[in-house]
């Protein structure tokens, strides 16, 4: 198979790294060669961040190029727009129905565009997931990263991998049930 590329983008602190790590570990255990790249440090303080997961028979570079992502998963609405040129022409977008205004918007120097999801739809195959609401329903808004992981799993047809087992092995015991529910709700949110 050709290498598949999953680009997870969002705002520092939203949990993109944990979601990518779970995804990559699951893919590795399923026998794929995998590489993942993430960015630590300053941008994790509320900046625009990306995590990149690549899998296939043999993965060369850990980094996804513009036009190279099979799926763009945005944890925040505006970030999907920022990274849209990384999507392949045939790629899919999953966007979390969740807005975090960046500081230039908060201070009034810039505007948060109104109809971003419509704009995205004009250019790509877009699935909107209300991960924030689902996670809140499950009792912890921070679990939205795992809801989105579920959405990726469904969209990339990776439901055969035993994600429940992986969550049990990797997540702190107190969060296992929450995360298992979150991953299933994420899968259900994608057709």
């Amino acid at each position, binding site marked *: 198979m050709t290498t598949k590329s999953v680009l997870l983008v969002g705002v520092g602190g939203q949990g993109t790294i944990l979601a990518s790590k779970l995804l990559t570990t699951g893919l590795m255990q399923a026998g794929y060669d995998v590489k993942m790249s993430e960015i630590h*440090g300053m941008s994790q303080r509320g900046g*625009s961040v990306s995590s990149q997961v690549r899998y296939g028979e043999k993965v060369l570079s*850990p980094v996804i190029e513009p036009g190279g992502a099979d799926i763009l998963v945005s944890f925040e609405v505006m970030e999907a727009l920022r990274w849209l040129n990384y999507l392949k022409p045939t790629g899919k977008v999953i966007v979390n129905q969740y807005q*975090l205004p*960046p*500081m230039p918007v908060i201070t009034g120097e810039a505007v948060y565009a109104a109809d971003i999801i419509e704009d995205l739809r004009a*250019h790509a195959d877009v699935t909107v997931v209300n991960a924030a609401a689902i996670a809140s329903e499950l009792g912890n808004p921070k679990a939205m990263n795992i809801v989105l992981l579920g959405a990726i799993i469904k969209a990339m047809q990776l439901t055969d991998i035993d994600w429940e087992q992986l969550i049990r092995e990797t997540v702190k015991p107190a969060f296992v049930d929450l995360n298992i529910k979150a991953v299933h709700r994420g899968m259900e949110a994608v057709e």
Partner: protein
Amino acid sequence: MKELLMGNEAVAWGALAAGVSVACGYPGTPSTEVLETLAKINPGWVHVEWSVNEKSAAEVAIGAAYTGARALITMKQVGLNVASDPLLCVNYVGVKGGLVIYVADDPGPISSQTEQDTRHFAKYACIPAFDCSSPEEAFHMVQDAFAYSEKYGGPVILRSTTRVCHSCAPVEIPQVSPPSVIPEFEKGSQWVIFPRLSFLNKQKLAAREPEISRDFCQYPFNQRIGEGKIGIACGGISYAYVKEAIEGQEHLFQILKIATPYPFPEDLALSFLTDTEKILVFEELDPLIEDELIYLSGKKGICAHISGKRDHSVAAAGELSAAAIRRTLSAHGICAEVAEPQPAADLPHVPNRPPVLCAGCPHRASFYAVKKACSEQQAIFCGDIGCYTLGNAPPLNMVDTCLCMGGGVTLAQGLFHSKIQDIPFAFIGDSTFFASGINGVINALTNQAQLILIILDNGTTAMTGHQSHPGLGKTISGQTVTPIRIEHILTALGLESVQVVDPLDYPRALAAVKTALQQNGVRAVIFRSPCVALLKDTVPLKVDEPRCIGCNRCIRELGCPALSAHQHKAVIDATLCNGCGLCRHICPQSCIV
């Protein structure tokens, strides 16, 4: 069993497998996870420490290596500047046990002050250097580095870059066993660096350079791959980008992969130079491989056509990518032109999203108190390295200078001695104060500078991911030790005014700065409040909407990511707010509850 390991985790596992006994470092992105991992996987026989700074880390590790024990030092590239004094000297003296200096460079730079290239330092210091291109290689190379260090009796550098440090790949987890060496310090004149000894040892270093170069030509990670007539030279992560860029066209190319940038494997490179018609060099940071090839072709009288950074075929700064390599190849007429996908023209403008101080960050409260106290004074705010550098952003605008670790407190003294009228403030975090701030305070006192020292004490090394430091009474391995109190240090140095205040207690914080403004000499305010990222179960505040008059003062003045305007009224994002309460102090309506 294979596990998904980050490059830095692979280095830790490799060092453990190599029998490391002592591992020291100072946190710095992208190097931090090596020591954190070692502390976590330590079977009990490795001494792991966060040293107070990189110079101390290097000296501790050197001492260990004098006994025959294997020692590891970790740091980011600018940390190497701090450690350079012992490291430049130790190569003259030599070591008995393997000494590996792990340095993480940061092309971009993504999270650093500079784009400096550690491979240059290796050459300058005559320290052999390895450069890894993947987490798997990092795992093997750190073990090789220990072996070469002992073979040549001197330190060895393992250089990595962000995309290796922070990328993950499957790595076989090794079986580990305790080091078999029995440490012993044999007294002798060789451990005392004197001019005469250095003269003799410099000759030895020069003599061994060609010997190591020949040795490195046999090193398995130095490779010539393919038989095409177009040569591509690369090293580190660029190798992965090159492979990706030429996928499907490999027959055109011959790759020279340099895993040991110093001493340069000349014989291997020589056959590459003579076997190719044209050479492109792809490397991040400085054109080191390129210069070595140009030098070698001159030395051997080979007419080679070498392109890279020197002829602007490759960008001088920033990260490389497979796409950038393809663009260069097409510009040289080697591959078909590839258009980079551009954002569609009809999409709305996407505002920048710069990093910000977290909602509830106590630094915001400290900056705000100083700003308000200085509203009628001319003041200059010297910042330093840490999360609080983000205090430069609007609307706070509270960092006028930032240079290097610990530099703010001394830089402020230069401003004072230049006789400007503005009052110099120096902001420094707790970890940075211990790393290299104390000397600056001593310098200020003894040379009679006047400044207001603001210590932003959030009880952790926050930016790099919450490491311990001497003020906390806890080591990297979780042992409890006596904490060193910053106020005790300052008082012992002779500061007459040292106030300790909770910055979230706004009236007291403001009063403390106003008091300091009335004083002379070096006076300190320690703003002490824990990093908000370490707090659990914080309770968010909310705006009592009917009472909000929409003045937006809280939004305009604080720059808190949890506060934004909705239909002219302030709203608080409950998922972000940590309930610090700073906004309550400035709301004229007292409508934040």
